[in-house]
């Protein structure tokens, strides 16, 4: 059986990303291991699942990453999607904290979604499954 243990987003600056993903999104650091140079193996988890999937905040140093991220952001494509219980509450809380949303909560049938800018070069989607 193969399990998903780590997934990643490329972040422009790992320190800034750590602040955004912990202080604003509410995740907790799981691993923070120095690699070569200034790069770190930096992962966070949701307090709702401390032993669940880790999100790797991956350095953007490779020259292909910049154009890749820019193209995704231009067309509004999220780099990752996270689940929430109450999207409107998260939207209100994060907006009050200064987070920029490019899409407010929008009803898409089985889900309500919103899209925010993580300030590290990515769009992140928040999704709430609606009871069918």
């Amino acid at each position, binding site marked *: 059986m193969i399990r998903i243990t780590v997934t990643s987003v490329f972040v422009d600056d790992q320190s800034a990303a750590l602040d955004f993903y912990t202080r604003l999104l509410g995740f907790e650091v799981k691993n923070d291991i120095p690699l070569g140079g200034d790069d770190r193996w930096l992962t966070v988890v949701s307090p709702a699942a401390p032993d669940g999937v880790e999100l790797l905040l991956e350095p953007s140093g490779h020259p292909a990453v910049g154009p890749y991220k*820019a193209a995704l*952001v231009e*067309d509004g*494509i999220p780099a990752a999607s996270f689940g929430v219980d109450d999207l409107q509450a998260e939207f209100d809380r994060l907006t009050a904290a200064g987070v920029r949303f*490019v899409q*407010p909560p*929008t009803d898409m049938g*089985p889900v309500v*979604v919103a*899209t925010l800018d993580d300030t590290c070069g990515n769009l992140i989607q928040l999704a709430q499954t609606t009871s069918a």
Partner: protein
Amino acid sequence: MTREGSPNRQPLTGKYWLAYTGRVAADVYKALADATRRAILDELQDRDGQSLFELCTRLTMRHGLGSTRQAVSQHLEVLEEAGLVTVRREGRYKFHHLDTGPLRQIATRWPVPDEGESP
């Protein structure tokens, strides 16, 4: 490209001409003659200023239109040519906006009587 009543003497770009003169362009009819493009206009009417991704998601989830991103992008180009959609770049984002201005030309050409006035 054929435009009805095209005034050749005006050194204006197509979009400017479409948006700011009272003449009807054939492009507008072509743009409206497609169900997906009409659905795009519906969704921009619902919320103006959307990314390509949001429009694609809405077309899939709300209209059951499984158009590819490339196809939606081409539809948007047709709507842009007709002046019905404008693209706004804001930093790294790209948003699409609805402009119903070109539709005014249709009602000007074939005025709609007030209700109760119909023969």
